[in-house]
């Protein structure tokens, strides 16, 4: 396959509350304002899982639900890729702090939430979706790596939901992994043109330098969370403007994404 069709997208970050509300900001028509995200509980989860879902799981769900709602996609039909640099560092903090005490009493819920695939597990439970899902990390290149994984997973029968997300670590981990804010983005990719009102992308290796956002506020966001490394692509999507952006890959090279509406 050489082209992938974009069926839907979602976004969730402070001041970027969903795709519909964010398009004007991404087009430069509305100034960005850093508003904290409103409290949120994934409505799709059964009560037990909703109670146990961590901050990073909620971040993933916000973006994923937005993408599902934007296009009226039936999420039960989708295979999925969840990409996160760090999974849940609040859980990591609680576990490592507990292990530093003599009692070493770890919460069983914290332990099962500590797996990198917690969000994908909760998502499959919420959607009663038994399709395959995979979870990866590529540090700051997690969006690019996730996009390649999702693109490779798309086939004629199978559309794929990509969710890229990271929450903010609590101190003292925050000093070692300083993400400025929580964020998530989601993309539904398809091999079928008819179902994809948002346009199409081609993917190629590239030696060109990494693209940035011209708008300084968006550029600061791009650097604030690995999920928002997607912003140069999302700017094109919002403007419905054909162009190529280069996103840093997990190896040494960039990946060129050529977008056409």
């Amino acid at each position, binding site marked *: 396959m050489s082209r992938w069709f974009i069926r839907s997208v979602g976004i969730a970050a402070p001041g970027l509350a969903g795709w519909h509300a964010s398009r004007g900001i991404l087009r430069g028509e509305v100034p960005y304002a850093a508003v904290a995200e409103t409290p949120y509980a994934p409505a799709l989860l059964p009560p037990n899982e909703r109670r146990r879902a961590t901050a990073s799981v909620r971040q993933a769900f916000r973006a994923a639900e937005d993408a599902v709602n934007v296009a009226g996609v039936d999420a039960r039909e989708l295979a999925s890729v969840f990409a996160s640099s760090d999974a849940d560092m609040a859980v990591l903090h609680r576990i490592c702090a507990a292990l530093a005490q003599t009692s070493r009493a770890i919460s069983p819920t914290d332990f099962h939430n500590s797996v990198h695939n917690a969000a994908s597990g909760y998502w499959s439970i919420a959607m009663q979706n038994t399709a395959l899902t995979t979870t*990866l990390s590529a540090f700051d290149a997690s969006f690019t790596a996730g996009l390649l994984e999702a693109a490779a997973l798309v086939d004629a029968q199978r559309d794929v939901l990509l969710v890229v997300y990271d929450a903010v670590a609590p101190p003292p*981990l925050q000093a070692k992994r300083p993400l400025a804010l929580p964020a998530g983005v989601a993309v539904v990719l398809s091999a079928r043109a008819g179902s994809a009102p948002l346009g199409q992308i081609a993917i190629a290796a590239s030696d060109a330098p990494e693209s940035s956002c011209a708008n300084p506020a968006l550029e600061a966001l791009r650097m604030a969370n690995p999920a928002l490394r997607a912003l140069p692509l999302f700017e094109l999507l919002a403007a419905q403007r054909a162009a190529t952006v280069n996103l840093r890959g997990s190896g040494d090279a960039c990946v060129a994404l050529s977008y056409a509406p």
Partner: protein
Amino acid sequence: MRPLAITSYTVTSAVGAGRDAHIGALRAERTGLGEQRFEDSTLACWIGAVAGIESVALPRALARFDCRNNRLAERALAQDDFLGTVAAARERYGARRIGVFIGTSTSGVRQTELAYRERAAASHENLPDWFDYRTTQCTYSIAEFTRQRLGLQGLASAISAACASSAKVFASAARAIEAGFCDAAVVGGVDSLCLTTLYGFNALQLVSPDICRPADAQRRGLSIGEAGGFALLERAPASGVPACLGVGESSDAHHMSQPRPDGSIAKVAMARALGALPPERISYINLHGTATPANDAAEDAAVNSLFGARVPCSSTKGWTGHTLGAAGIVEAAISLLAIEHGFMPRSLNTRALDPDIHAAVLLEARSARVEYVLSNSFGFGGTNCSVLFGAAP
């Protein structure tokens, strides 16, 4: 999927370093598990520790990656001329055209545990200066270490889906090669001992005080081990060479830490791995077989409904312990050894088979031609993955 040649593979676990150590231990029925404590753990249980990790030195240029998990990777990469085979492949394909897909569940978390311990002892607010998040704790650390250690410059990912992680790397690599994102791939898995998993599984009451006894009527849970393994995958294998022939994945959509009891969705993953191959063609199934009561029962239900009681099967966790994110690659290596040597290992430590388990669990080792092997890996989050190995057609 199209078959992928397995040009080279290697495994290091509590049993020993490299393929010869593993086939030797499998034949001799010599477990790598020991009733010992990991560092200052206070838990009375059996563990599968790789001897001598503490003294492994990383190459100077990669010193910032130093942690138990990356030392284990370094030890594993040095076996069976894996480094040499990848170097030759790098010459053939170019460094940018070989992808890296490494499974792990906890990556370098031991380093974070040590940092928090030092912080608590000193009553500091901050973590110590020596703690480097990106190169040790971060899930991606193991994939980036492997990529740099092998001199590769293409795409790299850490696949982290709990205990199915390094089975799923075969699927990710196959798809990336099919999509043309790379021409070949290094897949692998590395997980190392740490207090997080020992105390975490203990909190869930899944750690056996006894040595793990898969499928046994009196099994009491798992024994945790550590391991690292790698394989080089290439497209268009010559007929007859060892190959990965299929991968199947599915999601239980049931519970975060318990399998769907009827195994119906795990069965879907197995069936997808088989593709068009009839179930009766499988010579041997390497079970996930963690030896927890619920896991073995659910897997048995899945195996039974697809294969009946005809296909010989066993868990090899009695040798290695449950190596978590490395279990997929360890058991891929054992599957390939079974094919190469015509040897099916028995279910080690199993004394009396659980009468509720109906699959053909091997209580004695068997020597016979092994044509196709199915290897199962399941994990938290309800993730299921089965991989089919055999000679390329």
